[in-house]
């Protein structure tokens, strides 16, 4: 109980919100990092997945990449990148590691979504004289949309979580408040930081949930491939 009230005191102390180590600054870093990496990984993963899904090739590749991604510890990749020349690029290692981890769920979900489109619908579209490009944009992509978006959601939440680990390797973001707390041996700060991070992750998940409920029918419904 004592730790909780001390953590609350830490959180409500306005001095802890301002400055370069302050909560606002860390929160902004976390948000920017997450958004930039999400956009980058979507730009990399989605075109590849949509084209492969349209052609019906590379399915085993898409699924295996996803499984390998789970087995490789994020923290290890971060530190490995940090010790290579990329380590000199400031936030470079963090961005590369985060993108590497967001690509697999995006790739797998989009691919599975494209392949899951009813073959008879595709046949019908072809029978109506649609070109491959038209089929991709007007038939397959709209029908695959719920799974594609569910991949984006999984990637976003995973990014928020992984951006936290970046702090272990000296990166910015909310995790920094926790690691700083550990270095100061200040349990209240550690707990306060953890609460902030957890709330931030839950808000992101919640926003996606709300977005999904409000979305028009074609984007709704969630099949997850994990």
């Amino acid at each position, binding site marked *: 109980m004592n730790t909780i009230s001390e953590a609350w005191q830490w959180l409500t102390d306005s001095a802890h919100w301002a400055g370069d180590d302050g909560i606002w600054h860390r929160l902004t870093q976390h948000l920017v990092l997450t958004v930039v990496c999400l956009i980058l990984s979507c730009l990399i993963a989605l075109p590849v997945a949509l084209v492969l899904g349209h052609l019906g090739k590379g399915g085993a590749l898409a699924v295996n990449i996803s499984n390998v991604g789970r*087995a*490789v*510890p*994020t*923290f290890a990749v971060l530190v490995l990148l940090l010790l290579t020349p990329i380590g000199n690029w400031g936030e470079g290692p963090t961005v590369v590691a985060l993108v590497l981890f967001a690509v697999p769920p995006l790739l797998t979900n989009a691919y599975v979504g494209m392949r899951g489109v009813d073959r008879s619908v595709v046949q019908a579209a072809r029978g109506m004289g649609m070109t491959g490009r038209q089929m991709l944009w007007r038939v397959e992509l709209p029908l695959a949309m719920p799974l594609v978006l569910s991949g984006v959601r999984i990637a976003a939440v995973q990014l928020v979580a992984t951006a936290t680990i970046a702090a272990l390797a000296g990166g910015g973001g909310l995790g920094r408040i926790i690691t700083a707390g*550990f270095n100061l041996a200040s349990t209240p700060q550690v707990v306060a930081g*953890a*609460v902030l991070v957890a709330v931030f*992750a839950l808000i992101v998940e919640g926003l996606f949930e709300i977005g999904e409920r409000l979305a028009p029918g074609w984007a709704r419904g969630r099949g997850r491939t994990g």
Partner: protein
Amino acid sequence: MTAPPDDCLARNEWICGEYLSTRRQIIVDAVLQHLELTAVSVLIALVIAVPLAVVARRWALAAGPVLALTTVLYTIPSLAMFSLLLPVYGLSASLVVAGLVLYSLTLLVRNILAGLRAVPEDTRQAARGMGYGPIRLLLTVELPLALPAAMAGLRIATVSAVSLVTVGAIVGFGGLGNLIYAGMNTYFKAQVLTASVLCVVIAVLADLLLLGVQRILTPWTRAVRS
């Protein structure tokens, strides 16, 4: 006066046989800690997950809260999870185990529940007609039929746990993560690479082991599954 040794350790190379031979005991200890943390966490999670899934299957009212709670727990970033449990467990191995149990729970409950729900109603009816009581029905019909889905969940949970253990380095109980963390601070390339590779090797071996167990336990699926 002896000249400083000119080996791969002194040159700080990524791959270094000298490292393996001189630090063998440290590496073995880290691997054992890693295996122990993973195994204990997944086993505890399994013991908790089976009853939870059975309850959620029996009473539809319980399914919502059980799934919601486990999903929320999964959203919380690992660094925050370990830190939030800090006041309860202190800097101990139990802290890491508790965090990993919470993560594994989500994956296990979801998969076991999906497996139980997939048992055909006809099968249950037939067993009831043969005079099976609810307990016998559960133990000899429903749970065995749910095994393939449960094992799939167990494999994902185990592989994820192997990679998440590394984050436990923040409290000094991260198995191979400890070596990565220490190697990061001292720029010790051979140690970081060796520990990272060992993490992946452990994850792959654990996955293969569980796959073998699955094949032995569910001989009836062999003809169907590729």
